[in-house]
């Protein structure tokens, strides 16, 4: 999947973790978790991509790989044409690694542990500016910080900067963390479950704020969530894309209206079923999956990785691994069902009723 004017390009990236520790390794085989398995993704200017999936599906690992915080075991990540890991290891890259590092920022789930509890907010915000903009004077730095804090509603800023993290509420802390990443004027911000820890009543406001600032700073977001409603909110409001991950792969990706409105992959359909809506009659309580539990990631099922849980699995799914079927709108699904002429349709079902 490609976009015009891409800032970041992820090309056939895999991240494998091999267990080599502990005495169990003496007896057993080495186990490999393919946290990210052959993923390609482009992120453009002012783009929003939301990654969604169950815990352990590799969404955080992919996120970290995208912003250059995790080295892929295979494939490449390029920032404005410069391979990130070559920049790190090469003395004369076109774009120095430090510049790439500054351009790609992260906001974590728990703002409480992202701020040093012993430092005033001012110190936490001054340090990154000092490191990346050493030419700025103290007054100038302070001015920038105040302006941004006021912009995100932490007023009066003079008062907020003197506080310690424990004197702020969860929502206020998350704003400070957002300000800290924006101070560096990054091109892409990875927001890893950045609003999951906030109360429901505050989430919409935080997401709105992030999108407002996007316009102001021309930033792209990679937004990771396990919650489909939040992912849909931010993707729909920004006109962004959503990518559904399962066992290290993107199983469905596309514009939000299509992925949520007309999901092609049975896994996306299950996630949609699992997301309760307030104003909706009694929907079906029957589970649209055959097994509740996710398979062992060190021993992934053959064929389509989803087939043991899939309610629509047929024999061909046990042996053949579906590639991505993409339609003209950039909506792609890794499921044979997306292809009307596939041999799947003649294959016997493996689901017992």
């Amino acid at each position, binding site marked *: 999947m490609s976009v015009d004017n891409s800032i970041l390009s992820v090309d056939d990236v895999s991240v494998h973790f091999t267990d080599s520790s502990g005495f169990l390794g003496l007896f057993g085989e080495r186990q490999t978790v393919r946290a990210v398995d052959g993923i390609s993704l482009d992120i453009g200017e002012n783009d929003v991509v939301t990654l969604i999936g169950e815990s352990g599906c590799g969404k955080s690992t992919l996120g970290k790989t995208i912003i250059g915080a995790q080295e892929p075991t295979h494939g490449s990540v390029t920032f404005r044409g410069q391979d990130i890991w070559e920049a790190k290891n090469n003395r004369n890259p076109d774009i120095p690694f430090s510049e790439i590092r500054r351009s790609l920022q992260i906001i974590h789930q728990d703002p409480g542990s992202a701020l040093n509890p012993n430092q005033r907010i001012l110190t936490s915000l001054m340090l990154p500016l000092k490191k990346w903009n050493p030419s700025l004077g103290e007054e100038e730095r302070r001015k920038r910080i105040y302006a941004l804090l006021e912009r995100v509603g932490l007023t009066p800023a003079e008062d907020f900067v003197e506080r310690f993290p424990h004197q702020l509420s969860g929502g206020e802390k998350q704003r400070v963390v957002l300000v800290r990443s924006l101070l560096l004027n990054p091109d892409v911000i990875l927001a890893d479950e950045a609003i999951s820890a906030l*109360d429901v*009543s505050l*989430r919409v*406001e935080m997401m709105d704020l992030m999108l407002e600032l996007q316009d102001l700073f021309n930033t792209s977001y990679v937004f990771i969530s396990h919650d489909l409603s939040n992912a849909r909110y931010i993707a729909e409001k920004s006109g962004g894309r959503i990518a559904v991950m399962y066992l290290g792969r993107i199983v469905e990706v596309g514009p939000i209206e299509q992925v949520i409105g007309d999901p092609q992959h049975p896994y996306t359909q299950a996630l949609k079923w699992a*997301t*309760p*809506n*307030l104003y*909706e009659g009694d929907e079906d309580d029957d589970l649209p999956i055959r097994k509740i*539990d996710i398979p062992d990631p060190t021993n992934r099922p053959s064929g389509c990785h989803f087939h043991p849980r899939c309610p629509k699995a047929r024999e061909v799914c046990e042996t053949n691994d579906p590639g991505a079927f993409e339609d003209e709108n950039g909506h792609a699904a890794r499921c044979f069902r997306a292809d009307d002429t596939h041999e799947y349709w003649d294959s016997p079902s493996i689901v017992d009723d």
Partner: protein
Amino acid sequence: MRTSNQNDSDPDQDVVFEVRDLEVTFGTNRGESRVVRNVDFDIYRNETLGMVGESGSGKSMTSSALMNAVVSPGETSGEVTYYPPGGGEPISVLDLDEEELRKFRWGEVAMVFQGAMSSFNPVKKVRGHFKETLEDHNRDVEAGLERAHQILGDLYLDPDRVLDSYPYELSGGMKQRALVALALILEPEVLVMDEPTAALDLLMQRSIVSLLKDLKEEYDLTIIFITHDLPLLTKLADRLVVMYAFDIVEVGSTEELLYDAAHPYTRSLLNATPDLNAPIEEMQSISGSKPDPVTNIPGCSYRPRCPMADESCAEAEPPMADRGNGHRTACFYHDDVADEIPIPAMEAAEEGGEGE
């Protein structure tokens, strides 16, 4: 303090818990922290009661008080009366001594906490937890383990594999389900669940909710489900209790509160809750911040954040107004709230023919 005739239970209902004037306080160096304030409510037999509210609104403390399980140095006062099935002698829970409480907990009322991860002893196999519980309560271990097999199977688990595992060998969702089975091992009447799904993935959350519905039928349970996840709750609960600032602000059937909520907080909460159908342009967070348990806000506690508040809201605390069908709300202007705070998602659903 709410004054009105709400202290009388609905005579048509078989009440299992009657809670009156419940107060939970903690002494802090900033003064007395009142984390549950004058709470009155009933729980009906064989219903699923959902408690919803922001973090720190007092919902966990209220549910802990049902078992007199508020952690020290918290002080619990008021009345919590438990009515055993078959018209047995009512039990005043807050007056039980240690030994009586031990029998009451788990045997009559069992609790599943948030974070199944830390509820198991890490160096004991799951089977050991079941055995220990049965032995402690002088039950037939053989028959009990038989029952454990059955409940674990009902929860889509492989009973032998789970029983023979150490907690770390199970995934979060498996542990959470094993914990539900453990809670049900002594055949309790009431199951209290405090954010039992918060740490789980959405597919697992929704699956557990479906399984709970089946369990409730099969084992004749009364379930109290505490969460901040309102959409999930509406798929499970028969009635909802909405807590704000350490007290109940609205109670009623799930249907009633979704379509005819009469408290500004409940309506704003519905508007702040993202779901897949909600019109995104209309969604709004609730401005302002939640109250501090040490301060006493005179009058209505929601007043500082309420768009409808006026002087009278500052003068007195609104009583629980009865809107019929067991729907009660603590707002002076409960008849006007629906006009003042529309719920676009509800209107959109009704226009789409999906509503009532």
